[in-house]
């Protein structure tokens, strides 16, 4: 039978394309008989249909197959073009199989001859169910896609941290092996310094330049050894607000220029992160120093501590420490290479190009993330994202 399973009245928003007042009434009566309370708007041109569609959430469009000014297939096209999932039920005087086939092929939900209008209630009920199912499926698929993306990111993160750990062990081994020969080089230079004290000034200049280079190499070796290895972390439960306050006051103590203003906003919520305080301070120092340097003497730096809700990557929620500056910014080419080891734009200022590389490693070893966004000429925003403690 063309009735609902239960006879409770169900509200139904119906957009009807019907030029005949009488047939429209027949359709509405049939819907009422099937248990629907219809809120119906009747249109009879393509323009009025197009205008009516966005007005409200329509449950169903019931459309006459042929009308004086257009045919039902055009209505199907309009709905399809809008991209909304609204079933279009075609009602026709004729009941030819060919016509029905054409309508279904064009995307009609059903094709009902006016003579068998008693079938309309069941058809609408079925279509509403299918719309619901399609909507639920779409939501599930979207959620699945989101989870897949998050899982993919987590997997990439795991692979990355494994790679970093291996790279850390490898680099640490190399750095150790370099220390003895470097010791000999430096010792040799210092030996020559004494031996050439009263010698040729050119030789003395050469010796001094070699010494500079050897000390620089020693600095790089030291930086490589700062590479955080997970086993090296001394984890403590720390309040991120306190951590940032301490790092900031230590850092400000060392700033030469009083022109530079560093503002800070702290999280109102109480938070705890399990971190190696010294290592994270090292990261923050690096970010503060980069921000201040980028100002080139004028502008401001803002430091913020915020709480971020739970997510797949951070199941206990996260703490975000944000360092924003109004400095010179970073060009897109440089931004892409920012975390590469030995990439530096400060070669002339004794930059080793390991600061951000190490900072990123340290944060990664805390299962966190370090992100940097920048616009050349406008400024840079760096975010340290740390997992909250359970």
């Amino acid at each position, binding site marked *: 039978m063309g009735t609902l399973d239960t006879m409770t009245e169900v509200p139904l928003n119906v957009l009807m394309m019907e030029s005949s007042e009488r047939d429209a009434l027949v359709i509405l009566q049939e819907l009422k008989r099937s248990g629907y309370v219809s809120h119906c708007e009747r249109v009879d041109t393509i323009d009025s249909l197009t205008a009516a569609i966005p007005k409200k959430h329509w449950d169903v469009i019931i459309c006459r197959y042929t009308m004086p000014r257009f045919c039902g297939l055009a209505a199907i096209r309009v709905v399809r073009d809008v991209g909304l999932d609204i079933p279009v039920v075609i009602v026709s005087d004729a009941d030819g199989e060919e016509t029905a086939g054409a309508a279904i092929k064009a995307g009609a939900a059903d094709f009902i001859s006016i003579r068998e209008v008693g079938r309309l209630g069941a058809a609408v009920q079925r279509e509403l169910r299918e719309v619901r199912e399609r909507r639920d499926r779409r939501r599930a698929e979207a959620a699945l896609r989101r989870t897949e993306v998050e899982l993919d990111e987590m997997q990439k993160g795991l692979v990355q941290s494994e790679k970093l750990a291996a790279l850390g062990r490898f680099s640490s081994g190399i750095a*150790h092996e370099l*220390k*003895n020969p*470097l*010791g*000999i*080089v*430096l*010792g*040799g230079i*210092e*030996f020559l310094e*004494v031996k050439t004290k009263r010698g040729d000034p050119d030789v003395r200049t050469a010796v001094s330049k070699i010494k500079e280079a*050897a*000390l620089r190499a*020693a600095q790089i070796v*030291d930086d490589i*050894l700062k590479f955080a290895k997970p086993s*090296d972390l001394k984890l403590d439960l720390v309040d991120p607000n306190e951590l940032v306050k301490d790092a900031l006051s230590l850092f400000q103590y060392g700033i030469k220029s009083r022109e530079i203003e560093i503002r800070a906003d702290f999280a109102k919520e109480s938070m705890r992160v399990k971190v190696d305080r010294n290592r994270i301070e090292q990261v923050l120092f690096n970010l503060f120093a980069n921000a201040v340097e980028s100002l080139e003497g004028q502008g401001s730096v803002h430091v913020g501590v915020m709480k971020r809700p739970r997510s797949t990557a951070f199941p206990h929620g996260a703490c975000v420490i944000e360092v924003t500056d109004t400095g010179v910014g970073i060009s897109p080419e440089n931004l892409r290479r920012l975390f590469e080891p030995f990439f530096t734009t400060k070669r002339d200022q004794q930059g080793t190009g390991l600061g951000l590389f190490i900072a990123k490693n340290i944060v990664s070893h805390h299962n966190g993330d370090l992100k940097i966004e920048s616009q050349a000429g406008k400024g840079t925003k760096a975010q340290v994202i740390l997992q909250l403690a359970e």
Partner: protein
Amino acid sequence: MSKNRILIIDDEKDLCFFLKANLEARGNYVVKVASSGEDGLYLAERFKPHLIILDIMMPVMDGFKVLEELKKNPKTMAIPALMLSAKHDDESKIEASGLYCEGYVTKPVQIDDLRNRIRKILKLRKLK
């Protein structure tokens, strides 16, 4: 003023050569070198150094073992030891301090830094 005697125990012979030359050229020291732990223990008794500079990573007998033996021997236990190592990790430093070494410097070290450390240790030793 008599010169302070320093014993370097390190298997890196070239490093020792320059350390000895630089310390003797820039400080009031007489330096002897041992290139193994065993030789180091032998020289520590005979040469009676005022201070021992000791490497950690050495074959056969490492620096920790040498330090342990030095501190067990009544003839050498009072000699201050300064560890000079490529090992930078905290564990090594803690282990060394547990064995009563007087200082820890990581390689490569600049001669002036090393001289400062030596001077401080010897000064402290005299005060004691």
